[in-house]
C-alpha cells in the first residue's frame, strides 16, 4: 500500500524571482524516488514541504515532458512560504503529489482560448499556455489578458515575447497602479476585458486569480455573451492533506483537492456555498 502522506524528496536546482515577494522554485526529484511516476498535467498541484515548518499546496507551473524540473511559483504570505523563500539552491524539499484534476486541454482543441490571469493566479495558467504553444495548430486564437496590482507583480515576464511571437496570439497587460516606467494599460482586468472585447464564438475562457477577480470577471464575461460551459476557472482553499481526507478544503460538497481545483462555471453556479 502506497502511503500518500510520504512525499518525494526533491532538490532545489534553481530559484528565480518572478516579482515582489514571488519566487519560482525549480525542483529536481531525487533519483531514489520513482520520479518517473510523477507525471502531471496542467492544472494539478502538489504539496511542497519546508521540512520542520510544514507543507503547503502550490500549482505546478512546469509542463511534464517539456520542462525537466517540477516548478512552483510561491508567493510569500505565511510560515511555509516564508521558510521556502529563505532556502537556497541545493536545499532539499518534499514534494507530495500530483493532486487534483487538470484543465481539459483535449476538449478545448480547435477552440479560441482566452486567458485571464491575475497576479500569482497567472502561475497555473502558464503551463496551459506552454502546452498550447507546443501544439499550436490544434488550437484556435489565443488571447492572454494578464493583470497585477503593479508592474513588479506581473509574473513570467521573460516569457511574454515568446507568447507574443506565437502565431494567432495576443498578449494584453494591465496593472491596478502603474509606476514610473509603465506605459501600458492601467485598470482592473474587467476594464481590460471590456477594451479587448474577445468574441465568445467558439471560445473557452480560463480564469485564475483572486476569488473576487474571478467573481467579477465571470459577471463581465456573461454580459459579453459567454455561457457557463465556456468558462473554466481554478479555485484555491486552505488544505492540509490534498487527498480528500482531512475535510478542510470543501466548498459545499465539492473538495477543491478532489473535485478541483479546476472547475467549470457549470459546476460553480450549482455551488450552495460561495467560493468567495
Amino acid at each position, binding site marked *: *500500500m*502506497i*502511503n*500518500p*502522506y*510520504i*512525499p518525494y*524528496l526533491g532538490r532545489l536546482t534553481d530559484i528565480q524571482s518572478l516579482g515582489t515577494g514571488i519566487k519560482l522554485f525549480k525542483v529536481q526529484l531525487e533519483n531514489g524516488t520513482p520520479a518517473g511516476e510523477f507525471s502531471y498535467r496542467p492544472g494539478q498541484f502538489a504539496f511542497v*514541504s*519546508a*521540512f*520542520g*515548518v*510544514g*507543507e*503547503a499546496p502550490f500549482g505546478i507551473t512546469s509542463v511534464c515532458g517539456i520542462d525537466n524540473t517540477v516548478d512552483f511559483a510561491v508567493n510569500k*504570505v*505565511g*510560515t*511555509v*512560504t516564508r521558510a521556502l523563500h529563505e532556502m537556497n539552491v*541545493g*536545499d*532539499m524539499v*518534499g514534494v507530495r503529489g500530483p493532486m487534483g484534476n487538470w484543465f481539459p486541454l483535449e476538449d478545448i482543441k480547435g477552440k479560441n482560448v482566452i486567458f485571464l490571469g491575475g497576479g500569482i493566479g497567472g502561475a497555473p495558467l502558464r503551463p496551459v499556455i506552454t502546452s498550447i504553444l507546443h501544439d499550436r495548430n490544434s488550437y484556435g486564437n489565443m488571447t492572454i489578458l494578464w493583470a497585477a496590482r503593479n508592474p513588479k507583480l506581473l509574473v513570467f515576464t521573460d516569457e511574454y515575447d515568446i507568447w507574443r511571437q506565437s502565431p494567432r496570439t495576443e498578449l494584453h497587460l494591465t496593472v491596478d497602479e502603474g509606476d514610473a516606467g509603465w506605459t501600458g494599460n492601467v485598470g482592473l482586468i474587467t476594464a481590460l476585458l471590456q477594451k479587448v472585447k474577445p468574441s465568445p464564438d467558439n471560445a473557452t475562457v480560463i480564469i485564475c486569480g483572486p*476569488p473576487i477577480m474571478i467573481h467579477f470577471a465571470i459577471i463581465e464575461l456573461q454580459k459579453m455573451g459567454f455561457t457557463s460551459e465556456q468558462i473554466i476557472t481554478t479555485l*484555491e*482553499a*486552505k488544505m*492540509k*492533506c490534498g*487527498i*480528500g*481526507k*482531512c*475535510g*478542510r*478544503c*470543501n*466548498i*459545499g*460538497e465539492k*473538495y477543491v483537492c*478532489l473535485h478541483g481545483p479546476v472547475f467549470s462555471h457549470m459546476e460553480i453556479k450549482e455551488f*450552495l*456555498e*460561495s*467560493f*468567495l
Partner: protein
Amino acid sequence: MNFITHVQLQDWLARMMKDRTVIAPTRAIEDLVRYQPVNSPDAIAFDFTRTAISPKEFFLPASEAILTIERVRQIAAGSNNPEWNVKLGEPELDRSQVLFAIRPCDTHALLALDALLLQEPVDAYYARRRKQTTLIGLACEHPGATCFCTSLSFAPDDSNGMDVMLYPVEGGYALEAQTEKGQVLTDNLALAPYRGERPQKTWLPAEFSVPPRVVWTQLFNDPHWGRLADRCLSCKICAYVCPTCRCFDVRDYIVAQGLGYQKIERLRCWDSCMAEGYQRIAGGHNPRPTKAQRLRNRFYCKFDYYPADFGALACVGCGRCIEYCPVNVDITEVLQSVAIKGETLATNSTRL
C-alpha cells in the same frame, strides 16, 4: 451462535490481554466511561449505554506522527560545501489490538469512516489500525437518553462490521464470530452452542427520518442556521466526541536537534470545521467567518455532503453531541426542524 458465561468471558479476556492490547470501556473518573487499554478484566465497566468519547481515537488518534524526517548535515563527496541530507521515515504502529464491547453505532461510524479513509488513496495509518484491530461488539440492552440510531435506520443490535458479536442473554452472552479475524480469537474457546431464541432486539422506536437531499439544498440560506448559531460557542466538543468527525490539522515539529542534526515529526491532530480559523488562508481571508456558516457546514457535511461524496451518512445516532453540547445545540432538534420546513416547502410548492 455460541453461549459464553460471564466467568468464561473474563477468562477469555484475561488470556487475550497476555499478548494483545485489549481496549475496553473503563470508568476514567466518576460517571465518565471511556475506552482505554486495560490490563485486567476487573477494570472493565459493563454498566454503560455508550462511552463519553467515541473509540475513533484508536483508529484516528487525537495526535499522531504521519512522517518522520531526519536531516543530517554532510559534506558530499567532491564538494567543499556542507548540505543537508534528508531521510524520510514512516512511524511504526503498535501491536495488534482488540476493541472489546464496541457498540453497533460506533462500529457503524467506523464503516462510515472506511468509506472515506479506505478509498483510494488509502489513508495508510487508519488502514493499518483497522487491519490490526479486532472488534468485539456488544449489543445494547437499553437505549441511552440521547440515542437515536433507529431514526437513521440503524439498529442497536446490528452486527454489521463486527468481527465477533455478543448479545446479552440470561447468564452471559450469545456469541458469534463473523470474520476470520474474529475466529482467530474464538477458535480455542470451548463453548456450548446457544440454544435460545435469537436475542430480542432492543426497542427504540424511530422518531423521525433524515430529510432527503433536495430539502437540505432548498434550506441552505434559511435564517434558521443563524438563529441556531447564536448560542453556539464554536468550541469543538461536538466534533471531538463524535465517532464520525475526522477533520485534522497537520504541521511539522522539530523533536530533537543537535549540531548538524534535526529530527522532525509531521504531526496530524484533530481539528474541527467549527473552529473560527479553520478555513482561514495565509493572508487572512476566511471563507466561513460567521458561526452560522460553520454550524451549517457541520450539519450539511453530516447529512448532505458526506453521503453525496462517500456514500455513507456521517452520523450514527449515538447522541454524544447532544449530551455534551453546553448550550443545547441538539442534532435531533435540527433534523426535525429541517424535516418540518421541508414539508412546508413541499406543501407550498404543490399548492402553486
